[in-house]
């Protein structure tokens, strides 16, 4: 039996009166590259945010390798949606990536040589080393996304949560990001991605969760990524066979 990296039990989240997530149960095995798919407003981002403790759920519990998230922070890295921050903030690409080391440093302690080295390596990995001193507003959307990815890579976590990393990036960047995700999986990491493009699910991912406020299905892409689940999730007739 494989290890469970992330477990979600009876998770319910509501904004005001409207439930956004309803009674979600999930057990995500270690080492999978998983897509969370569902229509707009299905609660995909909310699910990630609730797991990471950014949003307080009404009910339910989260386990990261069986323990509460607060005790396991070092094992988890997060790539927020690119649009969630102000890219005109006065800082450089390298500086943003360095922020990935702040968690392991803890309060007050400043990043030093080791942290800078790790940040430069992460920049190299995402192909952004030549841009390290660039003011972040002068980066393209795809480059900004790579910077966010590098910031998470620096955390050297076991589990990566990514909120729409392919949003607004060009084909080259998408390919580069996918390669990094696959590499992460190869080294045994668990990667959980909020994803929009159904066509690429079978190509990029090996595990998938269908979500529309409730969990529709979760499991290996090869067995559960089918018309039936897509229709249940999106409410209209979907054909997986689009790309063949």
């Amino acid at each position: 039996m494989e290890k469970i990296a992330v477990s979600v039990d009876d998770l319910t989240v509501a904004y005001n009166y409207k439930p956004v997530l309803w009674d979600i149960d999930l057990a995500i095995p270690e080492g999978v590259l998983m897509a969370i798919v569902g229509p707009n407003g299905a609660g995909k981002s909310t699910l990630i945010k609730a797991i990471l403790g950014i949003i307080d759920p009404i009910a339910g519990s989260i386990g990261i390798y069986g323990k509460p998230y607060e005790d396991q922070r070092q094992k988890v890295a997060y790539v927020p949606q690119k649009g969630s921050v102000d890219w005109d903030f006065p800082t450089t690409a390298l500086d943003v990536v360095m922020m990935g080391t702040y968690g392991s440093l803890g309060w007050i302690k400043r990043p030093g040589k080791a942290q800078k080295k790790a940040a430069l390596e992460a920049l190299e990995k995402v192909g952004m080393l030549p841009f390290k001193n660039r003011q972040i507003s002068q980066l393209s959307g795809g480059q900004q996304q790579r910077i966010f990815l590098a910031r998470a890579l620096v955390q050297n976590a076991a589990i990566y949560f990514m909120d729409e990393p392919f949003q607004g990036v060009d084909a080259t960047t998408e390919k580069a990001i996918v390669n990094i995700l696959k590499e992460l999986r190869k080294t045994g990491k668990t990667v959980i991605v909020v994803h929009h493009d159904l066509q690429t699910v079978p190509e990029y991912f090996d595990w998938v969760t269908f979500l529309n406020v409730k969990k529709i299905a979760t499991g290996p892409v090869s067995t559960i990524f089918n018309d039936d689940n897509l229709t249940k999730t999106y409410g209209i007739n979907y054909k997986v066979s689009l790309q063949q």
Partner: protein
Amino acid sequence: MSLGEYFELLFTDYTLGVITLGTAILGAVTGMLGSFAVLRKQSLLGDAISHAALPGIALAFLFTGAKDSNVLLIGALISGLLGAFWIRGMVKNTHLKADTALGLVLSLFFGLGMLLLTYIQKLPNANQAGLDKYLFGQAATLVASDVWIMVAITAVSLFILLLFWKEFKLLLFDADYTKTLGFNTRFIDTLITFFIVIAIVIGLQTVGVVLMSAMLLAPAAAARQWTNKLSVMIGLAAFFGAFSGVFGTAISATQSNLSTGPVIVLVAAFFVLISFVFSPGRGLLFREIRFQKNRRELELKKTLQFMYSIAKTHEDISHPHAVKILNNFQGFTRKTLQQMVDKKWVTLDGTMWSMTALGYEEAENLYSQT
């Protein structure tokens, strides 16, 4: 008194020295902390807090009957903090948006403050005169002990700023991410808000309730134009603030009947104006210059491209052609032709032009760049 005389007096006249030092330090600390307000897009928070401080001043006077500025400022601090955290609570717990909450708190507290002030003015207490100076501030009332308090507060906030630099920067840039890294964002947030309130409160005596928010925002807005580095921005904001303080005091001291607070604010606003127009990276002037330059460059390249299309049909790329045939092409003028000669892209011989190897190569590479 002329400006020259003022700066001579600065080092000999004790009162003038104290006031100038006070406004300089005030400008520095508000510029520094104002950077945080600007970067958190909470520029109006300062305005609400300064207005919220007014009833605190009035109540402190009513309770103690004394006009000691320190006592009054403690009242201002309490009601300013109350206003600030009320705004935050409102945004968090109701459907109201931040601007509505700010507006509500601002007008509610300010209204209450004005009410209390008019009540105090009717009291048969000779001591009450001059409480309304907190509306627009009066630098002339600054004494050495006030300035020492400012120095102490500046030192403490600088220390806190340096101590939590990393955490502040992280929160300002990406609050959600900060939370996932395990930092207590509420603590950092409260710390920032607390120091913004303190900066406002110590400025009330000098600049006043109504204009205080300008002291927070103007130096920071100006500083942002000159740099893309947070530390430099905060340093510059402090410098602009201090300079506005000194210069504003100087101007108001050399003219009769000019209150210091508004003059300081106007000097700070002047910095903003200059920065918006003349800063090299983000300023309007240089942006326009870059825009025009790019346009001319493009026109030139368009012409070159056209010449290239003619030249490449000949075996010898430098085969001469009549200038006339370019006339059909819209981007072409005598001037562009001369510029191309200067760039050694073409040579000109009377009414004939011929392309150089350099120009040919340039044209070939025009669209190959990715």
